[in-house]
């Protein structure tokens, strides 16, 4: 069992990046502590094998924040991460993103794939993903979702990987991210302007000097990656090299990085952290508001409920789509990791509330009239994250008013499904209707 040393190590990484590499202001609070959301979620994404979409203005550190976190949590030199990055642009091809035929061997009549660094390495960074045309976004869907990369008749499967994708705000050169791809992102964060004064401090730093660069190790990594060898064997050699690089960084620069074994140990600890009953019931309440439709049974993107529905005051009335099953998985994993990072024994409402806006903002399709109504609000967050935060506060207010009643309804439902003859608890929230539907056929 982890004794807290892993937590200290990860917190040191957060502190090191915040103080030296990605200077920014804190923009979120969890209990007594303040964090920078882009940095915090990047760290949790890297440790959790997650997928993160980073939005922001050009030049505000979207890609670099991900690069630093990736380098320190996977013991990879920065130059190698740069080499593995894929840029989104209309001319991008499968051969550059995933792999290409080995032309020399092809001339000899052999079909051998030369895999890209992106496909091989556990860290995947796609820069400006929304500059990829929609048809080409589908190319990376499988790899992004399952770590499953196919080219010609060959396939490699990443055992451990995480994805960072950056996106600029909409302009003439950007495309819409396709719904299946966007739902695969666990979280969305904004890499913000650090503020006038920190911006000046950043401006005074030497732009070419970076402690995470190591040309010697970068060459060694590349040599292994270019070898024609079994992928699993290659990954074992890469991991050995990662460890050597990590030792070198600790010895030379006192920078401690996380090894593969430590990442696994952290994930094992995170998985053990339970959700307390309030966190559990609150998450159910949120899911109910994002999936329930009184008229059509559930939310569907092509069906729009009308005015006058009893549930007009709930979020289900303001959104078009139904929340996916990936959403609760994401919330659980990220809130557990956050609780682990803070040293909490269980996930409470505090962690769930902190994580929710970033797991929801990209997944919700709001109705136009609701957007128009909220457009002019004074805010500090990008519009979609702002809307998600507002929504979370609104649902939390409703939950808070009737938390005991909701928990009672869930407890009664358990007893009913276990064979007791009890009346389902009634209430004015979609969660009660959802519970009743689960009990249909039993009573």
């Amino acid at each position: 069992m982890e004794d807290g040393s892993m937590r200290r190590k990860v917190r040191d990484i957060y502190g090191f990046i915040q103080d030296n590499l990605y200077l920014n202001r804190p923009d979120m609070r969890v209990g007594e502590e303040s964090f920078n959301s882009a940095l915090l979620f990047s760290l949790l994404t890297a440790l959790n094998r997650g997928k993160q979409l980073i939005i922001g203005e050009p030049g505000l550190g979207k890609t670099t924040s991900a690069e630093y976190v990736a380098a320190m949590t996977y013991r990879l030199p920065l130059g190698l991460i740069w080499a593995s990055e894929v840029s989104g642009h209309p001319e991008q091809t499968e051969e550059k993103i995933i792999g290409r035929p080995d032309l020399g061997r092809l001339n000899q009549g052999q079909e051998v794939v030369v895999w890209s660094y992106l496909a091989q390495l556990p860290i995947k960074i796609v820069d400006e993903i929304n500059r990829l045309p929609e048809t080409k976004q589908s190319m990376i869907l499988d790899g992004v979702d399952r770590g499953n990369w196919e080219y010609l008749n060959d396939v490699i499967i990443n055992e451990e990987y995480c994805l960072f994708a950056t996106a600029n705000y909409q302009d003439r050169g950007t495309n819409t991210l396709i719904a299946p791809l966007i739902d695969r992102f666990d979280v969305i964060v904004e890499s913000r302007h650090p503020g006038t004064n920190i911006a000046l401090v950043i401006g005074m730093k030497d732009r070419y000097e970076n402690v995470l660069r190591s040309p010697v190790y970068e060459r060694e990594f590349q040599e292994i990656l270019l070898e024609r060898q079994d992928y699993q064997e290659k990954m074992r050699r890469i991991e050995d090299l990662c460890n050597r690089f990590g030792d070198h960084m600790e010895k030379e620069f006192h920078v401690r990085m996380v090894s593969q074994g430590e990442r696994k140990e952290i994930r094992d600890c995170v998985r053990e952290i339970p959700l307390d009953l309030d966190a559990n019931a609150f998450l159910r309440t949120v899911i109910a508001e994002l999936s329930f439709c009184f008229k059509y049974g559930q939310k569907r993107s092509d069906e729009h409920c009308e005015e006058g529905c009893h549930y007009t005051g709930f979020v289900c009335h303001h959104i078009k789509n139904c929340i996916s099953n990936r959403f609760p998985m994401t919330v659980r994993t990220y809130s557990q990791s956050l609780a682990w990072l803070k040293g909490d024994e269980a996930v409470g409402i505090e962690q769930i509330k902190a994580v929710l806006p970033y797991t929801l903002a990209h997944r919700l399709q709001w109705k136009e009239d609701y957007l128009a109504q909220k457009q002019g609000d004074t805010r500090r967050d990008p519009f979609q994250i702002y809307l998600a935060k507002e929504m979370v506060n609104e649902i939390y207010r409703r939950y808070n008013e009737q938390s005991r009643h909701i928990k009672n309804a869930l407890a009664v439902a358990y007893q009913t499904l276990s064979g007791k003859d009890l009346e389902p608890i009634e209430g004015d929230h979609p969660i009660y209707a959802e519970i009743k539907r689960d009990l249909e056929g039993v009573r």
Partner: protein
Amino acid sequence: MINPFEDFKKYPYRKKEIPLDRIVRAKERVMDQIVEGYLKLVEEEVKDLVWLVENSRVFKAYSSALRTVQELDYDVDDIEELCFEIDKGRRIPYLISGPAGIYVSALCNNAKEERIRLRLHELKRTFHFLGYRLPEGKTLVLEGDVGDFIGAGLSGGKLVVKGSTGNWAGAGMMRGDVFISEHTGQNTGGWMSGGEIHVDGRIRGVAKTILGGRIYQQGKLIVPRDLTARE
């Protein structure tokens, strides 16, 4: 089948409750207290299973009943409910008409309502002593036939019986009025010292000893006889 509520297995749940459940539960609580008071009275008064009508004994039983009911919060419906409970004998194993009537009278006299109506038509058995010591300002309407000693010791109240009474109706009454829409038994008005008894039907027998007050039959004064003669 998966139970998606497993996480709430140990959460202490409460059953669904509609407002009517709460009302019924409160009513049952009150009725339990009333029945308990009655059983206590019966236990005190009927040790030898024979209850004798003696003035002192009746008064003692009434005082004891009054002390019990003064601690209860009930209404007219509860009194009527008690009459049915006693009659059905579900929770009350035996009916002794004397103590039962005295207990009901104590409940009526102590009730918040000034006008009390008890629908007793459907009872299989009759109660004695209903309207005992009914005080001034109270009106008690009894619908259905009742037993003996109805309106005994009446103390200024108005007792209306829509039916017949047994013997000794209005016995020992001091003030107030008794109206009986049908018949009365023997010794009607025995030892009464004031007030009026009006009987619309037949009077089987007027008591020999009447100290005061008046008795009317079908609107005609029959007691006292001297006044009757003068009229």
